[in-house]
């Protein structure tokens, strides 16, 4: 503690340099926060997707429909505990740019299947009872200012109603929230029954099935058993784990995401390198001062510690502030509809802190070692 004033004086020996170094570290770690957020956004929630859920799509492609009669056969397959159908509605709310997914489902089944979507019990009851009812994720509701009880008009692009109109209207009965950070809070769910009874064509067909299995380690066998049931039928199927399914999608968005990620990582390390060098330079400049300290009786270890603490202090203050600011700002960056809402994953914050300490240590250790090994005579002579 008694060294605090000395440390303080050292830091503000060159006020401008210390402040700008601090700012450079801060910016580097804001960049790190942004990188982590982009990584999560392009990952599309792969890490959240479960292995205990399978996705069954038409073998040719996801745009082909499957008969709804498959549902009972899937549920009867050994190892399967539950299954629900989903369909891509692809409607537009007011403007084609306002993209969010709308999916007709069996409400009870869907809520069973996705326990990570949390819906208050009264809203759940209201939705199940209301055939034209719908629920939506918190993020989408907030984006368009929807409240429970609102009537939401959606223009269909694919599904015309029996009267040949494209205007579908829904009552907003509930707003769900995600159980975990990163859970998709943008989707819009409504009754499959209402959808099926009102649509002009495609009646009795669904987009894909989500299947819950009892034992995740049996996933490959169960997927194979499911697909073989429907082999050689007009609608052959392809079943994969939800994780593999999301991963395949993320891979399609693609190597772009990978490249963007490597570029940001490169950016971060360049800034880190440059900053570390600048910090080291600040110590090198003070060689003669350190010699004076040693003359006054400071031990080698103490000088080493002094220099290291100083660099860790700059890295720590700048880095933690940078991470904190990115944590605050990133979720507020308006992404429009370009990317899902950004957030800095908690795990990345831990990695960030580790990097902050690493930066402080690496930037300090070489000049600190040099300072420790310094022979007083040489150092004093240098000036």
């Amino acid at each position, binding site marked *: 503690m008694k060294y605090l004033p000395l440390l303080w004086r050292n830091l503000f020996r060159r006020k*401008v*340099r210390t402040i*700008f*170094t601090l*700012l*450079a570290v801060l*910016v*580097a770690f*804001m*960049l790190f926060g*942004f990188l982590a957020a*982009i990584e999560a956004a392009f990952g599309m929630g792969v890490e959240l997707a479960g292995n205990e859920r399978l996705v069954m799509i038409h*073998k*040719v*492609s*996801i*745009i*082909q429909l499957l008969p709804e009669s498959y549902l009972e056969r899937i549920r009867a397959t050994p190892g399967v505990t539950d299954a629900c159908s989903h369909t891509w509605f*692809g409607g537009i709310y007011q403007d*084609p740019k306002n*993209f969010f997914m709308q999916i007709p489902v069996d409400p009870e089944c869907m809520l069973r299947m996705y326990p990570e979507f949390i819906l208050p019990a009264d809203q759940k009851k209201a939705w199940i009872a209301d055939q034209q009812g719908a629920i939506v994720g918190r993020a989408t509701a907030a984006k368009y200012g929807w409240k429970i009880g609102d009537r939401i008009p959606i*223009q269909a*692009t*694919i599904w015309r109603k029996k009267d040949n109109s*494209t205007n579908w209207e829904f009552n907003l009965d509930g707003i769900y929230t995600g159980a975990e950070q990163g859970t998709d809070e943008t989707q819009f769910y409504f009754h499959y029954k209402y959808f099926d009874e009102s649509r002009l064509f495609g009646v009795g067909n669904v987009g894909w099935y989500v299947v819950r299995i009892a034992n995740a380690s049996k996933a490959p066998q169960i997927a194979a058993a499911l697909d073989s049931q429907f082999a*050689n039928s*007009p609608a*052959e199927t*392809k079943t994969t784990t939800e994780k*593999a399914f999301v*991963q*395949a*999608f993320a*891979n*399609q*968005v*693609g*190597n*772009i995401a990978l*490249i*963007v990620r490597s*570029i*940001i990582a*490169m*950016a971060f390390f*360049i*800034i880190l*390198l*440059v*900053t570390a*060098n*600048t910090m080291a*330079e600040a110590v090198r400049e003070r060689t003669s001062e350190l010699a004076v300290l040693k003359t006054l009786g400071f031990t080698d270890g103490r000088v080493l510690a002094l220099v290291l603490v100083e660099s860790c202090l700059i890295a720590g203050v700048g880095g933690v502030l940078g991470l904190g600011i990115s944590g605050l700002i990133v979720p507020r*960056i308006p*992404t*429009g*509809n*370009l*990317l899902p809402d950004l957030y800095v994953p908690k795990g990345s914050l831990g990695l960030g802190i580790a990097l902050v300490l690493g930066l402080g240590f690496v930037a300090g250790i070489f000049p600190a070692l040099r300072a420790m090994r310094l022979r007083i005579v040489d150092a004093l002579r240098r*000036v």
Partner: protein
Amino acid sequence: MWIFSGLFQAAVVTALNLRTLTGRLAASTVAVVGMAGVVAVLVSVLSIAAGLNATMANTGSPDTAIVMRAGSDAEMTSILMHEDVVVVKDAPEIARTPAIGSLASAEMFAVVDLIKASTGTTANAPLRGVEPAAYKIRKFKMIKGRPFETGRNEVVVGQAAAAEYRGLDVGSQLKLGQNVWSIVGIFDAGGTVPDSELWCDAGVLAPLYRRGNSRQAVYVRLTSPEAFTAFKDHLTTDPRVKLKVMREQEYYAGQSQVMSGAIVFIGAVIGFLMGIGALFVAIITMYSAVASRTREIATLRALGFRGGPVVISVLVESMLLALVGGALGAAVAYFGFNGYQAATMNWQNMSSIGFAFRVTPALLALGLGWALLLGLVGGLFPAIRAMRLPIVTALREL
């Protein structure tokens, strides 16, 4: 007269300054590397968006158009009945040739799951059923094998698709659902969207998808680019049909908006943040440069050199370092990423699309401009400090 002496002074001080630059090499290198990083990152991220946009914008020519159902934003969600197609093909603004007749191709657009060669995961490859006029409407050149024969289960593959997916060699078989297709050729669509597609006979594809006589879009070549307005007015006012008419270029440019918007956004945020970081490093570098030259500057001032030339000399040094760094970064981006082949998702059509990164001269200029601006701002405060140095105390300093 004082202007010339000022200029002369500035030149002298700057020259002196640059000659002593070698003494500050280590610190200057750091600033250069920082700036190189900024420009390399900014330019390479933006080159992704530029490449994607170029692929989309090159698709179609001024005299080609696409007709879909009114209210559809993409072929995927459009449907045209046989009667609609007949009305479109009869339009007098469409170019005609004796061999084919109306240069209009009523097409069907489907998506099939193929395995990506790079990752081994599935991707949504676009499978397009076309009519013979398609070859005359799009850029199309067979580079291997032959075109498909009408009425047969044969496909030709765009060159980007052939590289992107497994098992699309000429002579191999492709099993899609219960149908087996023979791959008979590979075509070059000149870096446009069809390079990522598989083409087959619309008449063969439609029944397999139970589409009967319906199609999803009609592509046409008009008699001239100017004929578009008449063509559009004609079809959108025809009471028998409800259609949407767009220039092909406009249609594809719209499709890349979401993805390229996202990339430009990411590029802008990173380029800005990194720029600020590099700016701080540049400021530190220039401050220590000024500090190490304190006595030198004071001596010059004592000899009668004015403050202005000293400011200019510091700014020139700072901008020169930025320029060297920027040029280095631009070179890294150009040699590292220009022409790099990648693929991504076209969300409107739920299909995969291949393209090449493009480091354009405009991007290089943007990168260098940003570096120069950062160099200027980074040098400003240290320069002002150099000007304000009190001569007497500065001379006394070590």
